[in-house]
């Protein structure tokens, strides 16, 4: 198991290097000069050249990447001249806000999805199963931004039950929790729908496995049989949950933008629209890093609970 952990971590390194190269290159090929915002419009070519030299922009790409990567490793992702803040500062704050939103959405969505999926899977073909199927198909089909706008319009606009904009915990717990409700609802819906569907499918699948007959034949209670089934069904559920948590932690650009929740998604959105290149680079990198870490954790947890996975990787 320890060897597996080390292997997996080592495997994540090239992925991260690849991601960082892509992020860096993407920003270098974007049209427009990065120094444009820093120099007055009437600057002479010599003045421009001086600025470019000062920023290291006259160096060849590989060297610029190397410098950028080394400072990134030291936690220095550059300085947002537009916001007059260190990019890492901005990211730290945004990541914290996104984490709160993602954690609440994930717990809510996955717990509810598991419950619904379990109920549907163990009562296949019954009314519960149909209701859950329709509900989860609906949840899956509604785009989160559409649901967000709907919730915003009805619960906030018409009924005035919840605030429309994001407030963080700096503004007090009460307000923060109130303003969490709508973004969590819109973010958790898809997570819940996917989790419910995958859980149901996995349970139905495991129930048709031969070993379930063995369990019944040796006299286990229906509850005992279900515990075995659940333990077997958890693997695919875990995989999708990992992807979901990754997506939520990466910051939902649409949901955060609509509710003005000051997380990674909103930060990225603002940075792109204001051409704040350092911030875009840093945010993308952190989102990618989050995904890699989440997947790593999911793989390891999976190996811990399923001996077949363990055998396949090690």
């Amino acid at each position, binding site marked *: 198991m320890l060897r597996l952990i080390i292997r997996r971590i080592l495997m994540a390194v090239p992925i991260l290097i690849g991601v960082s190269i892509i992020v860096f290159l993407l920003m270098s090929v974007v049209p427009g000069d990065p120094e444009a915002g820093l120099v007055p419009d009437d600057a002479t070519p010599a003045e421009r050249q001086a600025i470019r030299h000062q920023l290291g922009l006259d160096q060849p790409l590989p060297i610029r990447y190397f410098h950028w990567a080394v400072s990134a490793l030291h936690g220095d992702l550059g300085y947002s001249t537009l916001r007059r803040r260190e990019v890492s500062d901005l990211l730290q704050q945004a990541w914290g806000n996104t984490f709160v939103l993602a954690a609440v959405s994930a717990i809510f969505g996955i717990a509810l999805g598991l419950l619904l999926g379990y109920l549907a899977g163990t009562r296949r073909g019954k009314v519960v199963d149909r209701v859950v199927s329709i509900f989860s198909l609906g949840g899956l089909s509604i785009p989160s931004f559409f649901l967000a706008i709907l919730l915003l319009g009805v619960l906030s606009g018409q009924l005035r039950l919840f605030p429309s904009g994001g407030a963080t915990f700096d503004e007090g717990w009460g307000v923060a929790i109130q303003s969490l409700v709508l973004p969590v609802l819109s973010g958790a819906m898809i997570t819940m729908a996917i989790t419910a569907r995958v859980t149901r499918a996995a349970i139905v699948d495991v129930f048709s496995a031969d070993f379930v007959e063995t369990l019944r034949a040796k*006299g286990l209670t229906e509850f005992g049989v279900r515990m075995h089934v659940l333990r077997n069904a958890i693997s695919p559920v875990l995989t999708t949950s990992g992807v979901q948590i990754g997506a939520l932690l990466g910051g939902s650009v649409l949901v955060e933008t609509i509710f003005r929740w000051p997380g990674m998604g909103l930060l990225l959105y603002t940075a792109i629209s204001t051409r704040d290149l350092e911030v875009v680079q840093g945010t993308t990198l952190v989102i990618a890093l989050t995904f890699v870490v989440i997947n790593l954790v999911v793989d390891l947890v999976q190996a811990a609970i399923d001996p077949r996975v363990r055998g396949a990787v090690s």
Partner: protein
Amino acid sequence: MTIRTQTAPALGSVAADGAAGPAPALHVTDLITEFRTRTGPTRAVDGVSFTVNRGGVLLVIGESGSGKSAMLRSIIGINPPTTLIEGTIELNGRDVLGMSPRERRKTRGRDISMVFQDPLTALDPVYTVEKQLVETVRKHHPGISRGDARARALELLELVQIPSPAARLRAYPNELSGGMRQRVVIAMAIAGKPQVILADEPTTALDVTVQARMIRLFRQVQLDVDAGLVVVTHDLGVAAELADEVAVMYGGRFVEYGSAEQVLTRPAHPYTEGLIEANVRAGQDRRPRAIPGAPPSLRRLPPGCALAPRCSYAIESCWTQDPPIKDVGDGHWSRCELAVDARPARAVSRAS
């Protein structure tokens, strides 16, 4: 004789006088199993009766789809809840069909257990052998300590002759070979010391080299726990080696019944004859001959004898009338009009 039959009213006398002595381990009368399907009921088992005593072995042979597996599942009670089951099933003299689901469940593993066809899929892949065995032991010995249950699990693995059992306890099913897994399944089946063990094609999924050893192990383990054994198979080699009595199943019914020696050397039903001719044996220079056609759909059995469309001996009455049960003597009977004397030619020509 350890096994008696009282299949048809005509032969009722065979078992009627067996009233003295302990109740048989398993006594099945007129068992009917019907699955409810969207296209209507499917009768998988159609009036089967037999008796198995402790220590006895009944072998049921027949093609896939003849109702063998459905019969075993009905007897132990793990068919889908919508299945219709009629007749009587007595375990040690207790009628299980009249029991509450909870009582019925308690008989499983303790009074009757089952070994399945495919050992590769019969064990829960995410639990160790130890966990699955200990779980079974504790189920049947409430109040047993964890340590004692573990010791018993080890003992069970020794009983089924698994090499280095202590190491195997810690293994996951995917780390064991097919034969080894089947041994674990057998160990689980005898954990509750049942009076009856059912086995559904226990050697079919195994390597040919392992099959014979597994059969001998089966026999020995069964005698160790003194259980009655019902084995379903289409492997006549198994039949010859293991069985006291053989029943041939076709279209949900027993079509021939007798001692292994009677049925396998002097088959009295054209279907049994076909099965024997379809069987390949080493050192034999005849080619195996397939039975033409396929088993009947159990959804709509043809009128008359179910085998008539595939039977080369079929006469006119086979197509219209239910075949009568013909007593061939010494407890050997056949559900065929021509069982006794109308059809001796073929058996003789094959022997020469």
